[in-house]
C-alpha cells in the first residue's frame, strides 16, 4: 500500500506531473482509492467508460468494480445509497454526470446528506463527496450547463468547493474526501482540459474554506471561482495597461466563504467586483456583497459590482457565450466602480 511504502512516498514527494484539471482529479481519486479502503466511487458510466469526461479513466480496472461502481440511472437512488454506505463507515465519492442532473437527488441532499450529523448529534456523520461538472461554455445541451452552487450554499450541513486549476483540484478533492462532513465538489467543465500545471504525485491537500490571491493589487478587488477566475484575471491584466492594479481572489470554497480574505482585500482596495456565471439574483455574489456590507462598510469607496450570468435559464449553446461574464463585462464593472 502506498501509505506504508516510504520509498514510494518519498520519491512521489518530489515527483510532479504536468496535468490538466481532469487529470488532476483522476489523480486525486486514484490517490484516495489507493490510500483508503473505505473510499469507493459511485456514478453513471464511471466504470469501463471512465466517466463521460474521463475523470475515472482506468480506475475500475485498477481497483475493481467493487470500488468503482457503475450505478443505475438513478441520482436520488445512488446518493441515498451513498448516505447508507457513509452511515455504515465508508467514504463514498459520488459522481453526478452534470450538475444539472443533481436536482433529482435534491431531497436526499437537503433532508439527509446535510442533516444526518445534526439529527444524530454527531453519532453518525457522512464523510461523502458529491462531484459534479458544472457551468456553460462547452457547447453542451440544455440543463448540462447550470451553475447551481447557490442552491447548496443555503443548505446548512454541506460544504461547497470549486477549484479553478489542476493543483487546487487535486488538493481540494483530497481535502474534501478527508473532511468528516459532506462536500459538494464542483468541477468547471470549461477548464477541464484548457491548461496544464505541475501537480505533485504525492498526497497533499488544500485547506477548505480558504480563498487565495491570484493577483495582488491596490485599486479593486475581484472575487471569482471556477471558470470565472481566468476571466477575472484577463480583466485584471487589461486594466493594468490602463494603469489600475486589481487584486484577483479565487475563493475556492463557496460554503463556508473565506470572510477574512474578502474583508482584508476590500479594506485595502475599497472597491469590490464579484464575478460568477450563475444567475445574479440570489447568487453567491449577493452573499459576498452582504459579507462586505457586514465587515467593510466604512471602507467602501463605491457600491459592490456583481458581474454575473443573467436571470434567465442558461441559453442553448448558440448564444451561451452571450450569457457568460466576459473580461469586457468585468472591465466595464471595474471602470464603473472606479469612476463612481
Amino acid at each position, binding site marked *: 500500500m502506498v501509505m506504508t511504502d516510504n520509498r514510494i512516498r518519498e520519491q512521489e514527494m518530489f515527483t510532479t506531473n504536468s496535468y490538466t484539471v481532469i487529470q488532476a482529479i483522476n489523480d486525486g481519486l486514484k490517490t484516495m482509492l489507493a490510500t483508503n479502503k473505505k473510499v*469507493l466511487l459511485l456514478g453513471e458510466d464511471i466504470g469501463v467508460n471512465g466517466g463521460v469526461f474521463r475523470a475515472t479513466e482506468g480506475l475500475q480496472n485498477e481497483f475493481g468494480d*467493487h470500488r468503482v461502481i457503475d*450505478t*443505475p440511472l*438513478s441520482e*436520488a*437512488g*445512488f*446518493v*441515498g*445509497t*451513498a*448516505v*447508507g*454506505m*457513509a*452511515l*455504515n*463507515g*465508508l467514504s*463514498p465519492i459520488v459522481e453526478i454526470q452534470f450538475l444539472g442532473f443533481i436536482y*433529482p437527488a435534491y*431531497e*436526499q441532499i437537503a*433532508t*439527509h446528506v446535510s442533516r444526518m*450529523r*445534526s*439529527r*444524530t*448529534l*454527531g*453519532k*453518525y*456523520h457522512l464523510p461523502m463527496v458529491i462531484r459534479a461538472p458544472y457551468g456553460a461554455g462547452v457547447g453542451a445541451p440544455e440543463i448540462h450547463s447550470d451553475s447551481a452552487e447557490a442552491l447548496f450554499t443555503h443548505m*446548512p*450541513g454541506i*460544504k461547497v468547493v470549486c477549484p479553478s486549476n489542476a493543483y487546487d483540484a487535486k488538493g481540494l478533492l483530497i481535502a474534501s474526501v478527508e473532511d*468528516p*462532513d459532506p462536500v459538494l465538489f464542483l468541477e468547471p467543465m470549461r477548464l477541464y482540459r484548457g491548461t496544464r500545471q505541475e501537480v505533485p504525485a504525492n498526497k497533499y491537500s488544500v485547506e477548505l*474554506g480558504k480563498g487565495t490571491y491570484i493577483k495582488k493589487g491596490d485599486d479593486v478587488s475581484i472575487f471569482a471561482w471556477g471558470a470565472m477566475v481566468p476571466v477575472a484575471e484577463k480583466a485584471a491584466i487589461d486594466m493594468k495597461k490602463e494603469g489600475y492594479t486589481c487584486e484577483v481572489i479565487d475563493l475556492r470554497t463557496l*460554503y*463556508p466563504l473565506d*470572510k477574512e480574505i474578502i474583508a482584508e482585500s476590500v479594506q485595502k482596495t475599497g472597491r469590490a467586483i464579484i464575478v460568477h456565471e450563475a444567475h445574479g439574483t440570489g447568487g453567491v455574489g449577493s452573499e459576498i456583497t452582504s459579507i462586505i456590507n457586514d465587515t467593510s462598510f466604512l471602507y467602501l469607496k463605491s457600491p459592490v459590482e456583481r458581474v454575473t450570468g443573467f436571470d434567465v435559464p442558461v441559453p442553448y449553446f448558440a448564444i451561451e457565450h452571450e450569457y457568460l461574464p466576459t473580461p469586457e463585462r468585468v472591465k466595464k464593472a471595474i471602470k464603473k466602480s472606479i469612476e463612481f
Partner: protein
Amino acid sequence: MKMKEKYPLMQIVDSSGNLVSGQYESQLSEEKIKNFFYHMTRLRTYDRRGKALQRQGRIGTYVPFEGQEAAQVGSALALDDNDWMFPTYRDHGAALAFGGDLDRLLLYWNGRVEGALPSQTKRILPAAVPIATQLPHATGAAMAEQYKGSNQAAIAYFGDGATSEGDFHEGINIASVFKAPVVFFNQNNGYAISVPIEKQMNSETIAQKAVAYGIPGIRVDGMDVFAVHLAVQEALERARRGEGPTLIEAVVCRFGPHTTADDPTKYRDQEKVEKMREEIDPIVRLERLMKNKNIWDENWVSQMQHEVEVEVNDAVERMENHEKPDPSVMFDYVFEDPTWSIQEQKEDLLERSRF
C-alpha cells in the same frame, strides 16, 4: 382477484387463535408465544400512554401505531443484534422491540433531538420523515455490509403510500441490481393519511411490485405476529445467503388516526374499524391462541402488564425531568467544526439568552 391469488396472504395463526396448518407447529413454542405477547403488550402500553400524554399537552403531536404491533414486533424480533433498522415515524414500536430506548422515544415526541436516535447501541436510524427516503439508505448500509464481507443485513420500514414515491422505486431497483442484503418491509394499513390505497395505486397488491425488480414479493397477514416473523426471517436468510432483497407486504389495520392531529372520521367510518378490531386485534389473537393452547396464565399476564406499566411510568417521569433543552445543540452538530457564521450566531444567541 388474480394477483391476490398469486400473492396469497400468508398466515400461521388465524384471528380466532388457531393454527392454520400443522406445518407451523414448530413456530409456536410457549416461550416464543409469551415473548411476542410481552413485546406487543409493552408496545401497546407505551403507545396508549403516548396518545394520553399528547392529549394532556405533555408531549407534541404523536404518531400512534395501535393495530400494527404484530407487524412491528414480528419483524423487529427477526433481526440479528447487528442488523440495521431504517424506520419511519410510525415504526417506533419496531424500534422499541428491537432494543430502542423508551426514554429517547418519548423525548423525540417531546420535540427533543436528543431522542431522535432511538438507541446508542443498536443500529436503528432516526425515523425517516420524508416519505420513502430511507429505502436507498437501507440499500446503501446493506451494500456496505456486503463490501465488508460481513453477514449483516438491513431492513427498511415503509407504508403503502410510500410506494408511490420515486425513492421507493430507486432504492429497491438498486438493491436488486447489486443483490444487497436488505428486506423491504411494507406495512400496508390501507391509508396514507386520508388517501385509501385504491387512490394510491392501481395494483391489487403491493407484493406484486416485486416483479418489477425480479425479486420475491411476499404478502403476509400483518396482524399475525408469527407469519410476519417467519416471512422476515426467511427474507433475512435469503439476504445473508447473498440472494438479494425481498419485498414483504404486511397487510395491517391502523386502528387509530394517522397522528394525534388527524381526524379519521373525515375519511373513514371509525365505528366499522372498531367493530373489525374485535376480530383482528393482533394482541387479542395471541390471547385466544394462548387460551386455545391452555397456556393463558392470568398471574403471569397481570404481573407482566404491571411491569410494563411501571417501566413506562418511570420512562415518562425521566422524560419530564430531563434537563431543559440547551439551544446550543442546534449549532454544535451541523459540522464537526462549526463554520464561522454558525460560531458567530451561537455566540450571539447565548449572549442574548444571558439578558
